[in-house]
């Protein structure tokens, strides 16, 4: 099997002068990127970064991040990219649980880490934003590194390329292993599903430490198209970028599209006519938002459903399926979606149960967690932890989450992570994190707090503690101090009753 890097190198030979990536005003051609990747691969090789080893990555969206994905593919290593805004303790925990040996990042993120807490990271540490003239600055190291091909490393495709972490700060992290073959299959499946060709300009506007943006930057590089990478997201920057870079295809998370739709209501915006197709992922968009986007952006519009473990499972073409807009569409080619009832049998049309999915794009398991991986499977089907039903035409409707999870702006927050952090405060008897609806982000985190007898809760202290110990997307937006939590006759917390009590 050809590695991702080799497929890219072949494309670079075919179209050396074509723009491979645009990011934040900088462009790099296929030829230049190919040279950069080869030099960086040799730099890592000469610093004992070996086949099968793990590189922790603390980078914002930039060309170097994309290049590093190709470098890892080229030498058979895996990257473990994390949100650089995570607290140092969470980064250390995640790196340790993923056996990270080497770390590459920007100085401001790397300097917060305590090396003594990183038990395995004894290898190469590289800051890529040193712009000084020192011989060991990244620029000089790359300049002096040879461009010769890497020899002696055979890539089979089953190697882990990316370990992606969905959990956060306190719970045991669950690194999701995505192999080179996974990434190639997923990129090709998306290209086929949405008829993406080498003529397309494909926009990635979510963070590269999530699988969606990784797919969106690999898709163009694997087919010889151009990647447009936004360094950060804001609705006005998105529109500007789509207009100026003539973006033709993108997959966006629904909370981004809600914000873009809000901005599109302004009469002073320039017309956008380069878009051929947009796909919304992560949560269902409200119908009025879909219609606003359709009217203004004048392109094909799809909604998809999936997860990092399985990639895209179902897809809905909004224009072709106007009577099915409450669904998330039908299974994509080669994917089988079923509904599993609690008694372990498959549901009939119209019956609710857990959404399970059999796909050739299945992940490589949770890293070093065979029991957890096994428990997430029902035979060949991955159990999504979501509840849904299929109609007689095979359209899937998402009903609820079986897992205790809050999805804010397309990113998973595990309530347990937030609760564990707040419970560290001595005045807190109990704490429960819940999801509340939000116009911009879909859902946001709220917490209900019960104080210990005779003690008072100072919200300022709780907020400061959360800011110190949780990442930006995990921060609670609302705090409720209550006397006691609602419980059923068995003493079990009734979360639905709590949500109702606090939001009505």
């Amino acid at each position, binding site marked *: 099997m050809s590695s991702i890097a080799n497929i890219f190198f072949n494309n670079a030979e075919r179209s050396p002068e074509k723009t491979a990536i645009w990011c*934040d*005003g900088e462009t790099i051609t296929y030829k230049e990127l190919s040279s950069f990747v080869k030099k960086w691969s040799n730099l890592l090789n000469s610093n004992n970064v070996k086949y099968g080893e793990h590189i922790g990555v603390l980078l*914002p*969206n*930039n060309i170097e991040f994309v290049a590093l994905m190709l470098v890892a593919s080229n030498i058979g290593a895996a990257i473990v990219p994390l949100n*650089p*805004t995570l607290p140092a303790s969470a980064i250390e925990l995640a790196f340790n649980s993923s056996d990270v040996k080497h770390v590459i990042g*920007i100085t*401001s*993120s790397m300097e917060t880490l305590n090396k003594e807490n990183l038990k395995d990271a004894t290898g190469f540490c590289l800051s890529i*934003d040193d712009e000084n003239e020192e011989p060991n600055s990244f620029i000089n190291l790359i300049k002096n590194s040879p461009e010769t091909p890497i020899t002696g490393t055979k890539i089979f495709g089953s190697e882990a390329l990316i370990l992606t972490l969905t959990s956060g700060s306190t719970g045991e992290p669950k690194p999701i292993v995505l192999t080179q073959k996974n990434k190639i299959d997923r990129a090709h499946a998306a290209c086929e599903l949405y008829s993406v060709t080498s003529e397309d300009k494909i926009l990635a506007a979510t963070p590269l430490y999530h699988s969606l943006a990784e797919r969106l930057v690999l898709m163009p590089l694997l087919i010889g198209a151009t990647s447009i990478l*936004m*360094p*950060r*997201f*804001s609705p*006005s*920057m998105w529109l500007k970028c789509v207009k100026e870079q003539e973006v033709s295809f993108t997959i966006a998370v629904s909370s981004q599209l809600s*914000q873009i739709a809000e901005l599109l209501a302004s009469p002073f915006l320039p017309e956008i006519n380069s878009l051929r197709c947009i796909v919304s992922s992560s949560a269902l968009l409200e119908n009025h938002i879909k219609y606003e986007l359709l009217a203004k952006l004048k392109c094909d519009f799809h909604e998809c459903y999936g997860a990092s473990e399985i990639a895209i499972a179902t897809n809905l073409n909004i224009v072709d399926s106007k009577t099915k807009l409450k669904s998330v569409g039908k299974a994509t080619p080669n994917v089988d979606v079923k509904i599993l009832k609690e008694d372990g049998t498959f549901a009939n049309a119209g019956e609710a149960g857990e959404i399970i999915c059999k796909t050739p794009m299945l992940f490589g398991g949770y890293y070093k967690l065979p029991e957890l991986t096994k428990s997430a499977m029902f035979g060949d089907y991955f159990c999504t932890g979501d509840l849904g039903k299929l109609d007689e035409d095979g359209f899937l409707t998402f009903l609820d989450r079986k897992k205790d999870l809050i999805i*804010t*702006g397309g*990113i998973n927050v595990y309530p347990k992570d937030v609760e564990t952090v707040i419970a560290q405060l001595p005045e807190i008897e109990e704490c429960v994190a819940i999801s509340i609806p939000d116009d*911009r*982000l879909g859902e946001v985190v709220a917490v209900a707090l019960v104080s210990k007898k005779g003690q008072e809760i100072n919200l*300022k202290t709780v*907020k*400061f503690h*959360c*800011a110190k110990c*949780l*990442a*930006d*997307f995990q*921060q*609670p*937006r609302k705090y409720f101090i209550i006397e006691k939590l609602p419980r059923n006759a068995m003493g079990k917390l009734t979360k639905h009753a709590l949500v109702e009590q606090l939001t009505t």
Partner: protein
Amino acid sequence: MDEKNKPEEIKDFILKYISKKGKLPKDIDVDKFNYIDTGYIDSMGLIKFVVELEQKFDVQITDDDMILPEFRTIGGLVESIKRKTV
């Protein structure tokens, strides 16, 4: 006595914080730079940013402050924190 919350100190903290999201463009007027419209602080990151400013500079930033145009630029935010410093 040392002045509390010097403008340069506030500005340095803000610049260091937002640079985690990427390098700032060269040749910009830092004071007028809108770090929200350019995505350095997005709707997801706003709360942590504000709470860290409150803690670092011992000020209170309200929801009303956050909707003011001056809150969106580095210079405006520095001024606002300076004014709130007692």
